[in-house]
Every structure is written in C-alpha cells, then in structure tokens.
C-alpha cells in the first residue's frame, strides 16, 4: 500500500481505473462510443443515402443489399438508422449540455451565496418547472418554426431545474464542511473556493444524473419528433422513424421496432454508465 503513495496518480486516471472494475459500465462506454462514431461517420458507413426512394422495394425483406430491409417508401432502413443516430444524439447530448451548463451554474450560485440570491433563483425554477415541457416546445416551435434546433433548445431549457436543484443540494452539504472554512483561512477567493473545493466535491451526483438525462432527453426528443416538432422529414431521427411507422404498425411492426431498439439501447447504456460513474467518482470507495 505504501508503495502506491510514491507515485502521483492523476484524479481522472483514478476514476477511469475504478470505472473499469464495473463491467456493465465498461460495456456501456463501448456501446456509446460505437453509437457516437456511427453518428459522426454516417456519411461513410451508410450504404445508401437516407432519402433515396425506390418504390419497387417497399417493405422489402432483409437481403444482402438491404440488411434490414426497406420501409414503405423503399428507403434502406439501415442507412436511415445510421443517419438518424446523428439527430438523436444531438437531441440527447446538446440538450443535456444546455441543461447541464445552465443548471450547474444556477445551482452553484444559489447554493454558495444562499440568502436572497438563493430565494430568487429557486422560486424562478419553481415557476419554471410548472410549465409543461411540451407546451414550451410547442410555443418555441410556433414562434421559430419546428426544427431539430428548436427541439434541442426546448428540451435543454425545460430540463434546467433538475441539475440546478441537485447541484444546489449537493453544494449545501459541502459548503458547511470545515474544509471550506479552512480554505477561507488560506485566503482563498470565492472563485477559488467554488471552483477548486466546492464544485469538485459537489459535482459527482450531478454528473451521474446528467449522464442519465442524456438517455431521457433522447426519449424526449423522440417524442417531440414523433408529434412532428423535432427533426423534420425527410431527415431521419429515431423518434420520427417510429412515428412514420405508426400507421402501418399492425402489419409491419418491425419498422417501429428497429428505431425503438436503438433508442432503448442508447438510453440503457447511458443509465448503466451513470450508475458506474456514481461509484467511480466517490474517492472514499477507492482502494
């Protein structure tokens, strides 16, 4: 054990090392990396353009040319799934990033300064949370027209309260610990205390929850697309693909199943990774 002290270990390296012990989390990371790569290199991976129609191939069964078959318009399903990854991930990741950055900042300010600042921010979030997300999204779409970008914005903005509240609660527990007073005794500025001492100790639960939110937001994006407020046809998105299949679900359930599976796998991977991170980020569990 003493041997280990001589070597300086980076904190990030520690987290990775501990994450590696969790098989489900490692597997999720692989799955997510593959999904992200598929999204990035969709142009090269997809055998056909996503909007190439061929009515002679309507509802074609899987074949060597079309591995997963074709949809009602004779478009290659595999290609559409691959291109859809891009839109869906954007919905999930960008929306979460917006929510995360805004939420963490608001939560930090509310938690650290307390008093009336805290009061104002929290009441604002209360009011905010009482507006239904779909309503907000419909309004945004009505003002700016339905598009993927607006869906991202709508989801991002409407999920701000969650990380904000978590961050605030987490900071409140850290803020009253003696090491914060100790830092003040070292003449540390508010900025340094927040950035160096409070956030690193308070952020773990927020990161975990944000990881899981990515999955939730992909789902939310899918629902928005499903009602026509997200990605616009002919650009494919998992949610829109399910939506397109809804009229023919009875006879061709498989068309809804493929994008549905994609959504499920991605969301599951996000959740498993979040679970793994929860354990890996706690230094007290380190051994």
């Amino acid at each position, binding site marked *: 054990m003493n041997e280990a002290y001589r070597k300086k270990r980076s904190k990030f390296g520690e987290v990775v090392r501990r994450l590696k012990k969790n098989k489900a989390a490692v597997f999720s990371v692989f799955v997510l990396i593959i999904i992200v790569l598929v999204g990035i290199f969709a142009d090269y991976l997809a055998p056909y353009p996503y909007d190439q129609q061929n009515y002679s191939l309507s509802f074609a069964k899987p074949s060597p040319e079309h591995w997963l078959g074709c949809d009602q318009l004779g478009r290659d399903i595999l290609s559409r799934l691959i291109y859809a990854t891009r839109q869906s991930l954007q919905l999930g990741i960008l929306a979460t990033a917006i929510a995360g950055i805004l939420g963490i900042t608001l939560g930090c300010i509310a938690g650290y300064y307390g008093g009336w600042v805290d009061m104002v921010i929290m009441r604002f979030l209360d009011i905010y949370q009482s507006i239904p997300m779909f309503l907000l999204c419909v309004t945004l779409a009505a003002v700016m027209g339905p598009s993927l970008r607006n869906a991202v914005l709508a989801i991002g903005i409407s999920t701000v309260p969650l990380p904000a509240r978590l961050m605030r609660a987490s900071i409140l527990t850290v803020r009253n610990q003696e090491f914060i007073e100790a830092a003040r005794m070292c*003449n540390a500025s508010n900025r340094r205390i927040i950035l160096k001492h409070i956030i*690193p100790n308070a952020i773990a639960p927020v990161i975990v929850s944000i990881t899981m939110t990515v999955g939730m937001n992909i789902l939310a994006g899918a629902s928005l697309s499903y009602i026509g407020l997200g990605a616009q046809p002919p650009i494919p998105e998992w949610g829109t693909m399910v939506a397109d299949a809804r009229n023919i679900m009875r006879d061709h359930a498989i068309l809804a199943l493929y994008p549905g599976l994609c959504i499920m796998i991605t969301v599951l991977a996000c959740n498993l990774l979040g679970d793994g991170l929860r354990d890996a980020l706690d230094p007290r569990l*380190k051994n």
Partner: protein
Amino acid sequence: MPPLLEVKNLKKYFNTKGGMLHAVDDISFTLDAGKTLGVVGESGCGKTTLGRTILHLLDVTSGQILFEGKDITYPKKKELMKLREDMQIIFQDPYSSLDPRQSVKETIMEPLLIQGKLSKAECEKKAKELMDTVGLAARFENAYPHELDGGRRQRIGIARALALGPKFIVCDEPVSALDVSIQAQIINLLLDLQESLGIAYMFVTHDLSVVKYISNDIMVMYLGQMVEKASSDELFANPIHPYTQALLSAIPIPDIHNKTKRIILKGELTSPINPKPGCRFRPRCIYATEECEQPQVLTEPLPNHFVACCKCSELLNNRRNTQ
C-alpha cells in the same frame, strides 16, 4: 509591549427565528506571545464561535480585537489577508476539515500558493519541510485524506495551519475526535511546536484534563459568558464559581481510589436565545438567590483569578472555614 492578542468586550449575536442568540457575550481577555489560553465549556457555550469570531470567519457584533496592539476588529480585505498569515486555526474534525479531493501535498501547499510569494517548486519544498515538522512521512505526499487515519489527518491540518508562519493559532478541539494514544501524540506535537516556534494557542475544548495539561491560563465559559478565568494550576486547585466546581468534579478520573464527592448538577443548559439579565447559571446553581438575578460583574477575589459571581466572596469564606 502590548500583548499579542487582546479581546475587549467581544460580542457575537446570531439573529435566529426564536430571537437573538447570544453566542458570545461580552468576553475580554489577553494572550501573550508563546502562551496558551484554554477555553473550556460544554457544547453550546460559544467557545467555538469565540474562536471563529476572533479569526474573522464570523463578523463581530460589537467589541474590539487588538492584535499586536493594532485594532483588527473590522479589517479591510488587504488587512484580513495579511492577518491570516499571523492567525490560523486547527479544526476539530480531521475528516471534514480536509478536502477529500486534494492530496496531502496539495492541501499543505494551498495557503503558500495563494500567498504567491514562492514559486511552485519552492512551495513544494516548503510543503515537504512542513510535513517533516509535523511528523508526516514523505511517502504520504500524494496520499488522499481518506487513506490516512485520524492522527495523520490531524497532522495535515496542523501543517496547513503552520504553512504561513502564524503567531497565533486557534485550536478548536483538535484532539477530541482522536483515540487516547493518538491524542497524546498530537498534544505532544503541539507542545513541541509551541516551544520551537513560539506560537500562542487558544485551545478550545470540553476535555478538562487535556486543557489543564496544555494551558497557562484557563477561561471557563457558560452560555456565551466568561464565568471564571485563572491560571491553570490556580483554577484546578481553587475553583470558585459554582459552575467551575461542578464541571471539575464531573470529570471522570481514571483512578478507582479517587473518592471526591461529585457535584451532580441538576437540569441542563438553558437557551442562549434572548437570555434574561443576571447569572445564566442561576437555574442550575445550588447557591442561587434573588441577588443572582442582577447582572454579574467580573471580580478579582484572588490575584489574577477572575470570577463572575456575586456570591464569590461568600463561597471563598465558606471554603476557608471548612478547610
């Protein structure tokens, strides 16, 4: 030469839902360089608040604090930064007083880095010297607090407090979370440091045997007020205030032949919120009469022995008669 630290009529009130909480109420004392003042009292007596207020971790409600003759009651930002180089604190809880995400070295280096007088390499060198001073082996420099036991953690806290070369340290129950054998190691370390560096301590604790051991003077607090103050030996030999007497007799002494009569106090601490004038110990005191409802004045019945009790001459006479 003025004393190192002089506190005059210091008050710290908190505005709570129930009313004004008199956490520190009219405390005055002086402390010379290289000496130790023990502050004793039970939980809720304001001893921790007193330390925090002197260090400006809490704002002063009223009163005056002088450090080396200079008024530092309401310091400007620059003055406060300078002041933190001279006044430091060692915390009670070696678990929560260290950032769990900072290694030993990072923790000790932090005040030096913020001070900005030394380069990073020099800071690291200084941190290693400090580790050596407090008896932490160099191999722990990259360890994290949770990997170490309570005694070593407390040594980290001490090294951090020493980093800027303070003249005065508030020790806020630094050993009460430690086991006896480790506690003794830390007390010895604090005594060694005082001898070699000439630091003055304000040693806040509820453990009377420790405070007797380490302090030159002892101040006993009850509900925010000073009830008695004397030199360590004098206080233990000659406690006058009824509360001090009860407190001293309540210490469990590790000796089965010690058959001194315990004074068992009735009741528990009353609330420090909006206290009535008069002696705050009155509801639990066996000597209490109507006289005690008047505000108590600090008197000096014996040389350098201060008591805030209107019955003190009576109590002294009683004792002389029985002896």
